[in-house]
């Protein structure tokens, strides 16, 4: 496949990758670079991202078509953060919890993560009691406070951001918090027979048309799904259906089937928005963690 007329034929998958994931965007999008790019003083936090589709005024065109990989599949490459603003559509209320009906065409703020499930989470009685106790304790025992790694899918609704890459044989997610990685294998492998439980679980992925479907099992036993303390257990199977409706948006429909903690499967429908002109920077929690010894619920605190 020729990327540009006159360029050498690119057939080798490694060579395609070497062309640069951002270079793929150049096939589709105009190459209007921020005029100041040559003069930004190398600050990685603000370093301009290349090959961003731009409007006539130079602003990024987040509604531009989503980029495609060389094989025609949607390209999820980007640095992503959760987006709590959604476009009101006729079906929005069936996908996320709304406090009041929305007007088609308007933008509405929606709850974050599990709190967005219409009708609430279908918790088993013991799980409901556990979450109630954790919430009453003001989440003082949240493992996130103690620099524990974050489990998926909780990573998605924490304020530490994810960069997604397509590499041969897998989709790779990197997260700033504790430099965490997650591998979703697309090489057709089955789940391992013996799964040592891990924070990210074991993930395999495949395309169904323009939707990337991830199936994950093998979570650790007693993780927190959110700050409220809703649990996710080792019995959970998670299915994520991810699409990229336009350049600036990823939509994730995350279905969790955890019969140990929940009476039926439920789906968290969320958007992520692209972060441009900034770079991933590591965030290591143990560098200077001070809060965990100062957390108090109504019944008191914990010893450090």
């Amino acid at each position, binding site marked *: 496949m020729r990327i540009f007329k006159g360029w050498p034929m690119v057939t080798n998958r490694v060579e395609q990758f070497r062309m640069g994931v951002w270079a793929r965007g150049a096939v589709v999008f105009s190459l209007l670079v*921020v005029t100041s790019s040559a003069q930004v003083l190398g600050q990685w936090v603000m370093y301009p991202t290349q090959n961003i589709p731009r409007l006539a005024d130079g602003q990024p065109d987040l509604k531009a078509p989503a980029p495609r990989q060389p094989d025609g599949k949607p390209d999820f490459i980007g640095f992503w953060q959760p987006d709590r603003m959604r476009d009101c559509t006729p079906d929005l209320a069936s996908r996320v919890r709304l406090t009041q009906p929305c007007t088609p065409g308007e933008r509405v703020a929606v709850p*974050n993560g599990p709190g967005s499930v219409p009708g609430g989470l279908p918790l088993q009685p013991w799980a409901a009691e556990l979450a109630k106790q954790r919430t009453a304790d*003001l989440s003082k025992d949240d493992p996130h406070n103690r620099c524990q790694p974050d489990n998926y899918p909780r990573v998605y609704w924490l*304020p530490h951001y994810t960069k997604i890459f397509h590499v041969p044989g897998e989709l790779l997610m990197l997260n700033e918090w504790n430099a965490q990685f997650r591998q979703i294998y697309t090489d057709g492998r089955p789940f391992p027979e013996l799964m040592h439980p891990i924070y990210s679980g074991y993930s395999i992925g495949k395309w169904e048309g323009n939707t990337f479907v991830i199936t994950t099992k093998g979570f650790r036993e007693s993780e927190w799904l959110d*700050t409220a303390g809703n649990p996710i257990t080792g019995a959970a199977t998670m299915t994520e259906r991810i699409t990229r409706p336009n350049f600036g948006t990823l939509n994730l429909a995350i279905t969790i089937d955890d019969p140990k903690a929940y009476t039926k499967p439920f789906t968290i429908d969320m958007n992520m928005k692209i972060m441009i002109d900034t770079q991933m920077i590591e965030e290591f929690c143990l560098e200077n963690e001070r809060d965990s010894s100062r957390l*108090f619920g109504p019944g008191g605190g914990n010893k450090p």
Partner: protein
Amino acid sequence: MRTMVTLAVASLAGLLITGVPVIAHHSFAAEYDASKPINLTGTVTKIEWTNPHCFFYIDVKNEESGKIESWALELGNPNALLRAGWTPNSVKIGEAVTVEGTRAKDGTFLGNARSMILISTGKRLFAGSSQTNQ
């Protein structure tokens, strides 16, 4: 001058695009008391530009007792502050600042900062507090 203007434009464009991460991720209410707001004016004595939270230490004169109180103010992490327009040099040791925020539940000289004002210039910096959207 042109370089600085261009840099400022690029910075502003970056801020508008990336936004400020304001989603609460750990329980603010377990550590800070929303019924105890603080508004402190003092001199910066120490800066810890670290994860998971930056800390600024300021000496504040207690108007009633006349004593100098050494306060620790917790801000967002470096990534959040950098993307909100801070640099590690935005505030200097010895600088006079006013901090708006919330006091810790344990009653110590600790607060969670929502914003910091540089008295010499009047510039206001948002502090990436985890109180937002709690």
